[in-house]
């Protein structure tokens, strides 16, 4: 490859990388956690207070709920398994008519159960905003709400990220064979970071290509569809998903005549062995278009959505209406489309793949952090032997180092604080207060502000310790709940919930190690760096001839 190309693409890589690195750090850190959105929801959910109902009693529960709350008939869900974040077996949501599809803030949640006498008992409840908010952070690179303009910001970031990937590969290709297996650990720290940046980037390249392209699609698909509707489909795109009109204009149907949930589950499992149903979503059951979606997962197949896929059954006749979204039973075309979603959302292969995506997501976050460090290091003013004192570093590198430290560690601190604070606030003030966003942004902006105030070198170690402490508080909060139930705190014993605690513990240990190593680096490193603390103005000149 001509060196001209390498030089040109190096400029592309530098600019696209430095413009998007910090936004992508947030997207990948929050995205890695979003892989475990359900365990997070279970961890943060308060203990259930509603009476459990067996699956055998579910037909009664459905019939009576529909009779007393007709607005649930449009779309309600029957859960087949118990989990901490599901307050009762039956639940439904009411969305504001003018709300955005992705905006969860105006949604009202209801849960229904039967009391001892068999009467319906309905509670409106507010699930914690935490899991949805972490998801939103990753969807719109740290912005607070998942709206159209914010998604376009994400789309531009994703497009620049795609350019950074292409240009990064072009820059590395000529020396790939030489550099790939080389991790030159040694005195030349920049070489070592560059080697590590390259090896992580190349090894996880397929993952990053998938993420860049799917993120661009998720951001811009509405616009592309609208344009293609005019150019390709003669304005008929909207009709592609319309179901055929029901043959007979059937009158109101009696939901008591529906098959039982158990019978519907059995039908689905006979239709697709290996499919493990998790919930039944009933839609318009009192009208002519009644349908039940049997949602579930099949670890041996590709799931079209993050929560799995579904088989659509007529709840009155038991006839299978559509297997277009059933894992393992999709047509080739639908499977190809589903695989794009599954590859982004780790919706295949079960929990092993989820852990792999978690690690790849964190490695991605590190990739962007290291990219920013390399940008700073490349612009370093070195001390030469003739200089009695270390030169003042460039203003832009000092600011970029402070921003990198503040944004990245601010995001980690903010998420940990939102998790811990949400649980404590619930224990102290009840469900009325949900300060998830407030806590996150307070920590996030405080970290950034402080990093700019005192500089990268002075703020990075305390901020790492702060992140370590806040993350350690996650399992400690659960421990407090287990030991002192009178405090109002709680701890769940399911593996999903304990997994959150244990992962946070491991994260806290990792952050503590980083804090110690960074402190050593700052104490022992050369003074001609944004990472040195110039308090020791009597820096020995002897260190200058070290490299």
């Amino acid at each position, binding site marked *: 490859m*001509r*060196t*001209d*190309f390498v030089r*040109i*693409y190096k400029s*592309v890589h530098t600019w696209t990388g430095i413009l998007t690195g910090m936004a992508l750090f947030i997207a990948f850190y929050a995205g890695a956690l979003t892989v475990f959105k359900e365990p997070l929801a279970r961890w943060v959910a308060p203990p259930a207070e509603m009476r459990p109902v067996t699956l055998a009693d579910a037909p009664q529960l459905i019939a009576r709920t529909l009779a007393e709350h007709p607005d649930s008939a449009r779309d309600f869900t029957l859960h087949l398994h118990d989990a901490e974040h599901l307050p009762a077996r039956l639940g439904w949501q009411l969305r504001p008519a003018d709300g955005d599809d992705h905006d969860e803030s105006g949604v009202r949640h209801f849960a229904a159960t039967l009391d001892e006498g068999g009467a319906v008992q309905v509670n409106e409840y507010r699930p914690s905003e935490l899991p949805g908010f972490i998801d939103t952070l990753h969807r719109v690179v740290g912005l607070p709400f998942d709206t159209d303009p914010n998604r376009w910001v994400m789309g531009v970031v994703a*497009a620049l990220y*795609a*350019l950074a990937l*292409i*240009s990064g590969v072009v820059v590395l290709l000529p020396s790939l064979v030489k550099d790939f297996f080389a991790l030159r650990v040694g005195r030349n720290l920049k070489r070592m970071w560059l080697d590590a940046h390259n090896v992580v980037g190349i090894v996880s390249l397929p993952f990053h290509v998938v993420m*860049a*392209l799917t993120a*661009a*699609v998720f951001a*811009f*698909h509405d616009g*592309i*569809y609208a*344009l*293609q509707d005019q*150019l*390709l*489909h003669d304005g*008929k*795109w909207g009709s*592609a*998903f319309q179901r055929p009109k029901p043959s007979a204009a059937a009158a109101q149907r009696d939901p008591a005549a529906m098959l039982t949930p158990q019978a519907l589950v059995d039908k689905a499992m006979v239709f697709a062995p290996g499919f493990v149903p998790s919930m039944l979503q009933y839609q318009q059951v009192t009208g002519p278009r009644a349908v039940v979606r049997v949602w579930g997962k099949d670890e041996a197949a590709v799931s079209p959505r993050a929560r799995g896929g579904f088989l659509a059954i007529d709840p009155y006749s038991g006839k299978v209406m559509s297997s277009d979204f059933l894992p393992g039973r999709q*047509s080739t*075309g*639908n499977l*190809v*489309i589903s695989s*794009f979603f599954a590859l982004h959302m780790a919706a295949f292969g079960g929990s092993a793949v989820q852990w792999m995506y978690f690690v790849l997501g964190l490695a991605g976050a590190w990739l962007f952090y290291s990219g920013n460090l390399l940008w700073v290091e490349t612009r370093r003013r070195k001390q030469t032997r003739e200089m009695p004192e270390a030169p003042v570093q460039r203003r832009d590198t000092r600011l970029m180092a402070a921003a990198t430290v503040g944004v990245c560690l601010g995001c980690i601190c903010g998420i940990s604080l939102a998790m811990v604070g949400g649980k404590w606030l619930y224990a102290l003030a009840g469900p009325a207060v949900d300060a998830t966003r407030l806590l996150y942004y307070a920590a996030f902006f405080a970290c950034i502000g402080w990093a700019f105030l005192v500089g990268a070198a002075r703020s990075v170690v305390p901020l790492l310790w702060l992140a370590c402490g806040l993350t350690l508080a996650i399992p400690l909060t659960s421990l407090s709940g287990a030991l002192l139930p009178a405090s109002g705190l709680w701890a769940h014993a399911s593996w999903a919930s304990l997994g959150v605690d244990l992962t946070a513990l491991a994260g806290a240990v990792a952050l503590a190690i980083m804090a110690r190593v960074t402190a050593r680096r700052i104490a022992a490193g050369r003074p001609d760096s944004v990472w040195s603390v110039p308090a020791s103005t009597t820096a020995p000149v002897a260190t200058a001839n070290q490299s």
Partner: protein
Amino acid sequence: MADKLPPIRRDWVSKSLAGFLLGAVLAFAASALFNVLSADLPMSVRGQLAMWLVPPVWLGALGGVYFFASGLRAWLWLGGASALLLGLLLALRLS
């Protein structure tokens, strides 16, 4: 040997614009061609695949455009490819 070749012109603005604008034309033309050639697929599947085709082609053009020796060449090659695709589409539609 390398120094005998003419230098690669930077032409940041004209190359980037070529990649952005003609990349879009290429991407939508490619999706239209796919749409015409796979008419036997159900419309819902065909339309979704056609949508998924747009960003890879567009971003591929935007990422590869800096390999052209100059901005002018980028416009000529990408413009030529776009014209070819659009002509093919027109021919398919008329036939």
